[in-house]
Each structure stands twice: as structure tokens, then as C-alpha cells.
């Protein structure tokens, strides 16, 4: 991988609790704003956003919290934020690291809810296709277990897995192994498992539809899933009620006005591809639930590099110009580039989504 050049994080979306999102003013940021950090020049290497607070981790191991939880703590190697639990991986004297689970409101005050020593990380922080390295939470560095916001907080994986990446949705889990195969388990009522049914799976099950296609990344949203292949193809499946799969959704067509993030419509259960009759009787295919992975074409035939999912939105970084295809507060059911980064000629390298916002990492172009 290329050497890491210092870059800038931007954020946009919901910041109603005052979490770090640009200026932090107002309740929502509609256009990307640079993340504000208390100390200038710090290099944020990971952002993990929960609904009401955001955790930013710097390369120096300092964790900054903003929003409904605030404060800072040092000696952190990794962090993972959820409403019920903030999970930290902290350095300790000697080998290994300490995994701590904190109630978000009381970080740094008192004791964590639980803590345990974990094995040291597998070799290769930046190895491509290697084992889980640094900053892989909720997957533990040993890749043999993962953390969950609900008890039991630490859940082992079956010994056969060589897990590279693991993501949690509202009720499902996605796992990417060293060979690029994708597994899923948990609730499946919205097709988010990708096995073609609405049934739950108690144990990890291989996504047969993607077998033989090595994947580079997986991302889990509230009730949808996304993965990016090593050749830059993007696959989406799960619930599409707000258009988060970038497939046509009935809710947006019928309302005629933007649903935004404030949909109060009842979800359509059990329907897959439905032909909906328009006034003139011509059928339009709307997709409420996509239970199998579907290949998604990005605009201009772009290839995908990275993907991240919020509760009901999806953000994808493409290879060529760093465009983002995503939904802002005006819900869209087709990919739409975030023009901000193009206008400023900022190549986008990484993206991470909180439930209702998006954080983007850009690197300045080298001046020739």
C-alpha cells in the first residue's frame, strides 16, 4: 500500500447531539465540512460514529469523543462506538492489549463495564489480504472473536474462520474471511443476509451467490449489506425502503416528495420485486427487499474501492476520482456523486458511516 500521507476528514449528516461534524453548529450538516479537532494538526486515523456521539482516534493513540459522550483518553489502539457501549482497545504494559467496554456517558470516569486482556495483534497492520490487524473492531485483533453491543459482549468465532473483517448491522452480522468469502448470520427479515430468504440464520452461513468472487470489503447497515469485490464491483442486498440499495423504491416514487431520513411509513414486508401499476397501468419495478446480492452499476461505469453503510444509507468511494455515491437528507434511490469533493479536487480515500451521517477521508493532491 502507498505510504500514508496526511489527510483531512470531512463529515456531513446528523449532528443533533453536537458531535464532531464540521462546525458542529446546527443539527444537520448538508454539505461536507472539515472535522474540527481540538488540537490542530492531529491526524485522525479512524472515525467510529454512533447515533448520538462520534469517536475519533488519532495516530498517536488519543481518542476524542464528541456529542452525547465527550472527553478524551490516550493509549488507544482502536475504538468502536455504539449507543449502548463504547469499546476500546488499549495498550498495556507488556504483550497484548486490553479490551474495555464502557458506558458511553461515563468514559474515563470510574471503571469500564468490563475488560479483558486480548492476544497481541496478528502481524501486518497494512497487509493486504492478511489477518485482522489494527483497527478492526468489532473484530478482535486475534480475529477469533468479536464484540457485540448486547450481552454476551465478547462472542467467539468458530475456529475454522480466518476472519479479515466483521461488521454489525441492527440485527445481522457480516464476515469477510481471508479468502475473500462473505458469511452472514442473524436476523434476516429484510433480506439482509443475502441467502435469498427472509429466514434468520443462527450460525454463519456462506453467501453462495458470491462464492468464487473474492471480496475486498464488506459493510453492514441497519438492515442492508454491501460488499466490494477485488475487481471493483459493488453488490448490495437487504432492505431498500429508503433507496439505500440504490434501487428504485416505491416510497420515494409515491410520495413525490423527498422522504429524507424522516420516513414514518410502515415497511412493506415479504415483498420482493413488485410490479406496481402506475396510473396509466404501465408497471414499474420497485424493490422493497433484495434477498440476494445484486450487482450495482455505478455512474460512469466507475469501480468501487470502499463502502460503508449507515442505518438507512450507503456511501461508496470509487477508484478513479474519489466520487461518493450516497444519499443525503433528500433520499435518493440512485447513486449520486458528492460534488463537493470533485469541485475541490479532493481525492477520497476512505469513508465511514455513522447511523445517520458520513465521514470521508481525503488526501490532498500532490502539487507537481
Amino acid at each position, binding site marked *: 500500500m502507498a505510504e500514508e500521507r496526511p489527510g483531512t476528514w470531512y463529515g456531513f449528516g446528523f449532528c443533533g447531539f453536537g458531535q464532531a461534524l464540521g462546525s458542529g453548529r446546527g443539527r444537520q450538516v448538508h454539505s461536507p465540512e472539515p472535522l474540527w479537532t481540538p488540537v490542530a494538526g492531529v491526524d485522525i486515523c479512524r472515525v467510529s460514529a454512533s447515533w448520538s456521539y462520534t469517536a475519533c482516534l488519532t495516530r498517536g493513540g488519543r481518542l476524542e469523543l464528541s456529542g452525547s459522550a465527550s472527553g478524551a483518553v490516550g493509549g488507544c489502539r482502536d475504538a468502536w462506538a455504539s449507543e449502548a457501549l463504547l469499546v476500546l482497545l488499549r495498550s498495556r504494559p507488556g504483550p497484548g492489549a486490553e479490551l474495555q467496554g464502557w458506558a458511553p456517558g461515563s468514559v474515563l470516569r470510574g471503571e469500564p463495564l468490563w475488560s479483558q486482556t486480548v492476544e497481541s495483534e496478528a502481524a501486518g497492520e497494512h497487509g493486504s489480504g492478511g489477518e485482522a490487524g489494527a483497527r478492526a473492531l468489532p473484530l478482535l485483533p486475534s480475529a477469533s472473536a468479536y464484540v457485540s453491543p448486547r450481552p454476551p459482549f465478547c462472542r467467539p468465532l468458530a475456529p475454522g474462520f480466518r476472519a479479515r473483517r466483521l461488521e454489525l448491522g441492527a440485527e445481522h452480522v457480516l464476515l469477510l474471511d481471508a479468502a475473500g468469502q462473505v458469511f452472514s448470520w442473524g436476523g434476516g427479515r429484510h433480506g439482509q443476509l443475502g441467502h435469498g430468504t427472509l429466514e434468520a440464520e443462527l450460525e454463519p452461513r456462506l453467501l453462495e451467490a458470491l462464492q468464487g468472487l473474492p471480496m475486498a470489503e464488506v459493510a453492514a447497515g441497519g438492515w442492508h449489506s454491501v460488499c466490494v469485490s477485488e475487481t471493483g464491483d459493488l453488490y448490495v442486498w437487504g432492505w431498500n425502503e429508503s433507496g439505500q440499495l440504490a434501487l428504485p423504491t416505491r416510497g420515494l416514487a409515491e410520495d413525490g416528495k423527498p422522504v429524507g431520513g424522516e420516513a*414514518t411509513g410502515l415497511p412493506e414486508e415479504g415483498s420482493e420485486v413488485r410490479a406496481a401499476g402506475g396510473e396509466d397501468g404501465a408497471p414499474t419495478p420497485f424493490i422493497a427487499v433484495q434477498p440476494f446480492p445484486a450487482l450495482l452499476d455505478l455512474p460512469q461505469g466507475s469501480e468501487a474501492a470502499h463502502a460503508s453503510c449507515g442505518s438507512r444509507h450507503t456511501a461508496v468511494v470509487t477508484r478513479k476520482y474519489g466520487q461518493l455515491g450516497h444519499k443525503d437528507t433528500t433520499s435518493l434511490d440512485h447513486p449520486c456523486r458528492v460534488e463537493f469533493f470533485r469541485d475541490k479536487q479532493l481525492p477520497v480515500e476512505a469513508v465511514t458511516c455513522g447511523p445517520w451521517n458520513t465521514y470521508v477521508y481525503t488526501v490532498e493532491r500532490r502539487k507537481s
Partner: protein
Amino acid sequence: MAEGTRCSGDPLVGAGALGEALRALLPHTKEGLRLDLNEKVERSVVMLLQEAAELFYGGRRTECLQRSEVILDYSWEKLNTGAWRDVDKDWRRVYTFGCLLKAVCLCEAPGDATTVAAALRVCDMGLLMGAAILGNILIRVAAVLQMHLLSGKRPAQGPTLEQPNPKVSGLEYIQEIAGCRTVPVEIGSRYTDEEWSQTLMTVNEFISKYIINEPKDVGYLAQHQLFDQIPELKQDISIPDYCCLGNGEEEEITINAWFGPQGTVSPLHQDPQQNFLAQAEWFHKLEHSSSQADQSKEAVQWRGSELGFWNQTGMNTSSVMINSVIGRKYIRLYSPQESEALYPHDSHLLHNTSQVDVENPNLEQFPKFAEAPFLSCILSPGEILFIPVKYWHYVRALDLSFSVSFWWS
């Protein structure tokens, strides 16, 4: 299209009075709006609820409205996580709280009929998906909003000399009491079909689209606790005395309405509870002759029932109502002992449902079905059918039909 709606932009008469009437329903201080919530509701949400209440009592309507949207969206996500029966009740109460504030904030300032209709829709969402708070305050808010929407409409027609058209008058009654209310509707011939779905619409829209104007699809207002949502309709039904023979309290009886055009089908299935299915019979309030005679109608007996307590007395399903809707249902019943011959679905979602299309069975695929014994009847207005627990039943509407079912233990 909804009756009584004015053009958008015209302020409703006395719209300032609406805001006052709504405020009068709420507690006087923000402390009254406090909800006691368990630890499942995250601290951040509790903070948000308090903030929203403060904004409301501080008169900051726009900001309160914005917070209530956030509350609604977040709790909506919780309501959609996991199986419905596992959703913590407190999340549903949070959702109702959001609906309450949003509906009241929308109507604080004088607005037009569209705004009031939107607020009523929000109330209905809270009633459909939420759980009661503050003594089920949403019912009262909905009643005030509905009254406001309908005020100025022409009054209901008085008695006429000629016999009213039963079908139309019954519909008029429903539209008057519940027309602007939002209800869940099932679209599609049967819930086992792939194209089947559920959606929300007002009762007026349902009647217009799926009952009267030559509907293209089958729409069915099915298995909905309509009388909990719109208690005004409850005045016109009475709980069969037979339901008191169970162990549960009267509050534990689930009353569902089933309202739809000719041809709606409930595929063969079984319920975990005892079931009474009653065809509504409604009478014109001001007519005397027909109602007396019909009150002597007996309930349809379940032949061979081991209970054997059926008699005519004490059964008064036909309380005095407005106008008559004639609706008959063809019903077929199979004993639970025949379950194997009914080929229930494998999947978890549909394991209480048979795979067989009862009136057009595929006997190659389901050979045992042909030999399974059954009982059938046509349930007419004023009649009640008792369906013992776990008995398989299939229902098809022969006419435009309104039925009420009572589930009890």
C-alpha cells in the same frame, strides 16, 4: 378526494381554537410529560425526550417539531429491529411520544386542512405502531383532529322514506366515522402470494380504490384492531357473551375488523387462540321493524362441538347501528387432527398456513387433501361462528363484507 377536505391554503375556521383544544389535552407542565422508561432506552434518547418537552413548554414549536422527528426516526428503527413481539414496549412508547409532539406541534399555529390531515396521520401511526402513554392520549388527540377536519361538512342525512341502498349507506357510515383515518391495508389476492404486500392509506382511499371504483387489485382491511384505534366504532358492536367463558379478562380479548370487497380470501390457516367470527349486521337507527325481528337471529352453531353450550339467549350481536351492510362469507373448517393432510408451509413465517388452495387444490401436489373431512358454512349478517383453538379455517367473502373477530383464551 377525502370528504370534507378543503383546498390547501384555506385556513380552517377556528384553527387557533384547534391549537388550544390540543394543548388542553396535554399536561400543564413539562414534568407531566415525563415517561418512565427502562434501561433499554438509551440515555441519549432520554435526554432528547426531555429536551423536546422543554422546547414544547417553552413555546419553541419549530425546534420541538424537529426534535420530535428525530425521536420518531430513531424509535422507528428500534421498532423495526427483530421480531415485532420482541420489540421492547418502551420503544413503542417513545415512538408514541414522538407522534404526540409532532402532531400537536404541526397544529399549534393555524394551518390548512392538509396540515391537520397530516397530524391525524401521525396520530394514527402512533396508534398503529406505538404503545399507549398518558392514558392513551393519542386517541383523544385524534378525536379532536378528526372533529376539526370534519367540521363544516354537511350533516349526516336524516331518515328517508324509501329503503336506503344497504351497500352505500353502510359505506357512508364508515366514511363518516373513520374516513380520514389511516389504516393498514393488504394488497393482493392472498397473503401467501409473492405479490402480496401491506400498505397504509385512509379509509376513504381504501373504499374509493378497492371497493367502489372497479378495483384493479384486491385490497383488504384485514386483521386490524380498528376498534382500539377508533373507539367510536366500538359503540356499534358488543362483545359476545360467550367470550366471558374463557379464563382471560375482557381486556385480553383481541377484537379485529375485517372489511373488504367481494372476493377477499384468507388462505387456510390456524390461530393460537379461540376465535369468534361475527358478521356485522347493522340497522338503521330510526327504523324499527327490521331490527326487532333480526335480533332473534341465532348464532351459527359449530356442529359437533364438545362444548355444547349454545343457545339463543344472551346473544346480542346486533346492537343498534346505522344502516345495513349485507355481507356473507364462505367458511371452511378442518380439525387440527387433519393437519398433515393440509400440508403446512415449512418456513417459520408461514408454518400456521396451509400450502393448499382450498377451492382449487392441486391434488397432484397435495394428494391427501382430497380425503380430509371438513365442515363448511356461509356466515350471514348477524351470525357468529365459533372456531376452537387451532382449528384450520378458510374464509372467502361472497359480498362486500364487514366482519368482526374476537380472539380470547
